């Protein structure tokens, strides 16, 4: 089973086909759609499991659809960074389960449209899986568009009164960034005559005019930065992530913004192995932008009363951590940064799932209205507290190890200033999460009816608690897994 080569194609085709077929299978009864989506995600997760076991056993491997040899045909490539499909499948599966009750509850959504919601969600997950396993620049763009377009539509799905505005703002910025990516893929094709990542890297090494390749690098970085919502191009994120339905917020904040990061890692791999441009300037810029994102995201989060808006700003500051880790480009900081891609996905999904549970039961979404909720929904509030201490980075939770490694990297790179920026950011983050925990447990309720609500239903509680347990237990596992890949990032790309 493990060695069956076709898993790599199955893992991307199944969710995409499943997405297209969702409206068809739910023609008779719309209640089929969530179970169908759950089945599709189960098959995908199984395939992902086999792939990860294989990459752990024998290292990176490729699949050539149609048997065409790489520079001419397209290539699917699975390496340690592609193992992030584990968290895509996990959170995707849980988000589908979570949506079962949550989407039915959204009043503004017409019931007969619900199958399309699952269709879009599967399309989004399939696009992300495709993005992380492709070995081809143009396919990277296509998958990026699949996942972005479905994300825009999903943001608009919640039907709240500014949802369309938020989705449109997201679409406009997202489309510009996709065009930047496409433009630079075109430039790279013009310079090297190839689209395969490994092949582009080899040919770039001897490419004569350096300027176009440098321009392409800049445009790719900016384009993917918009997708990752790094300062100063983060302005679309808070509204879009806060307004989307909660399971979608978890997917967007946990996974979709990380796609920008993984794209940056891929681009970095290409340019680093071509070794034609001095990446020092770029790294330094990324470190600064990362540091500003950390402090600014945390700063704005303090002033938010809306719980989901607060979590959305906190995503910006965590993206800052990851980018800073990559930009410092020492061994430990890259390990920490890329492991934070996994860990932050788990933590932020926990937080959004738990926040969604509170909103589902009470209908309120501001900290003032939710005061005292800890007494009536103890389990959800425990999950949100675990998420809070993990994101602050208190040992032994998931957030601690990554931030420790990034800080270590800052001192290794002899730039202790950024280590302090990181700790300073963590303090800010601590303030606003303490504010949240304080409101839930220790303040007198402003709305007395909040003490009457029941605990969230099982289909909402189970994903929340499972992820909370993972936040506590997963700890350093992603670090050890990503270590060989991170070391490879500083070494040439193998064909």
């Amino acid at each position, binding site marked *: 089973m493990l060695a069956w080569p076709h898993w790599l194609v199955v893992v991307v085709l199944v969710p995409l086909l499943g997405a297209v077929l969702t409206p068809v299978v739910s023609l008779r009864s719309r209640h089929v759609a969530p179970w169908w989506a759950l089945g599709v995600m189960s098959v995908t997760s199984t395939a992902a499991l086999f792939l990860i076991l294989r990459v752990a056993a024998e290292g990176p491997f490729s699949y050539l659809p149609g048997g065409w040899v790489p520079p001419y045909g397209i290539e699917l490539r699975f390496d340690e960074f592609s193992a992030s499909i584990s968290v895509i499948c996990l959170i995707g599966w849980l988000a589908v389960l979570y949506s079962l009750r949550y989407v039915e509850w959204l009043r503004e959504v017409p019931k007969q449209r619900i199958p399309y919601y699952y269709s879009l969600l599967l399309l989004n997950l399939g696009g992300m899986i495709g993005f992380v396993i492709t070995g081809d620049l143009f396919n990277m763009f*296509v998958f990026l568009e699949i996942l972005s*377009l479905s994300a825009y539509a999903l943001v*608009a799905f919640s039907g709240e009164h500014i949802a*369309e505005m938020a989705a449109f703002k997201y679409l406009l910025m997202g489309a*510009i960034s996709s*065009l930047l990516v*496409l*433009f630079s893929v075109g430039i790279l*094709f013009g310079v090297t005559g190839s689209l395969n990542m490994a092949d582009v890297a080899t040919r770039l090494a001897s490419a004569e005019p350096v300027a176009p390749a440098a321009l392409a690098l800049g445009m790719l970085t900016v384009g993917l930065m918009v997708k990752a919502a790094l300062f100063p191009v983060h302005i679309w994120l808070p509204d879009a992530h806060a307004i989307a339905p909660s399971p979608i917020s978890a997917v967007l904040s946990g996974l979709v913004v990380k796609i920008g990061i993984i794209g940056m890692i891929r681009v970095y791999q290409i340019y680093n192995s071509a070794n034609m441009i001095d990446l020092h300037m770029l790294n330094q810029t990324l470190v600064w932008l990362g540091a500003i994102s950390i402090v600014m995201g945390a700063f704005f989060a303090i002033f938010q009363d809306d719980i989901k808006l607060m979590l959305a700003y906190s995503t910006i500051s965590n993206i800052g951590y990851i980018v800073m880790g990559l930009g410092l480009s020492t061994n430990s900081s890259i390990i920490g940064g890329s492991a934070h891609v996994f860990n932050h996905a788990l933590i932020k999904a926990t937080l959004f799932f738990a926040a969604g549970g509170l909103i589902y039961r009470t209908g309120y979404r501001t900290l003032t209205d939710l005061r005292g909720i800890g007494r009536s929904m103890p389990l959800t509030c425990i999950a949100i507290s675990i998420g809070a201490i993990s994101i602050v980075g208190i040992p032994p939770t998931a957030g601690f190890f990554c931030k420790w490694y990034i800080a270590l990297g800052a001192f290794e790179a002899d730039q202790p200033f950024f280590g302090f920026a990181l700790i300073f950011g963590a303090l800010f983050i601590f303030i606003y999460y303490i504010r949240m925990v304080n409101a839930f447990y220790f303040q007198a309720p402003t709305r007395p009816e909040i003490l009457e609500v029941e605990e969230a239903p099982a289909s909402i509680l189970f994903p929340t608690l499972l992820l909370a347990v993972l936040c506590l237990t997963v700890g350093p596992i992603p670090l050890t897994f990503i270590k060989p890949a991170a070391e490879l990032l500083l070494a040439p790309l193998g064909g």
Partner: protein
Amino acid sequence: MLQALWDNLDYVAPVVLFCIGLYIIIAKNNLIKKFLGLNIMETAVFSFIIALGVVDGGDAPIMGADARAPFASPVPQALVLTGIVVAVSTTALALSLIIRIYRQCGTIEADELREME
């Protein structure tokens, strides 16, 4: 300088178009106009990639060396075809969003919408 720009007109023009599109998105107030700016940017990128397909003095791989020029590489055309499909779906989604914004708010001017938020 001018001569160099003129010689590379097929690369310069898309860049100019791209910037015009970007300017429209930033400067215009009407959502439909913003979106037209995006369409101009898309056209710019597509024409740039199509222009890459022409290689002066190149040989067509399968036809052999004795086939008569001019040829264009088919790969960029395939890329642009895919790109157009993506652009069409972006357009469809954006227009449907604009319709829903208009139904809810009664306007598609960005400054009036900002006041409503």
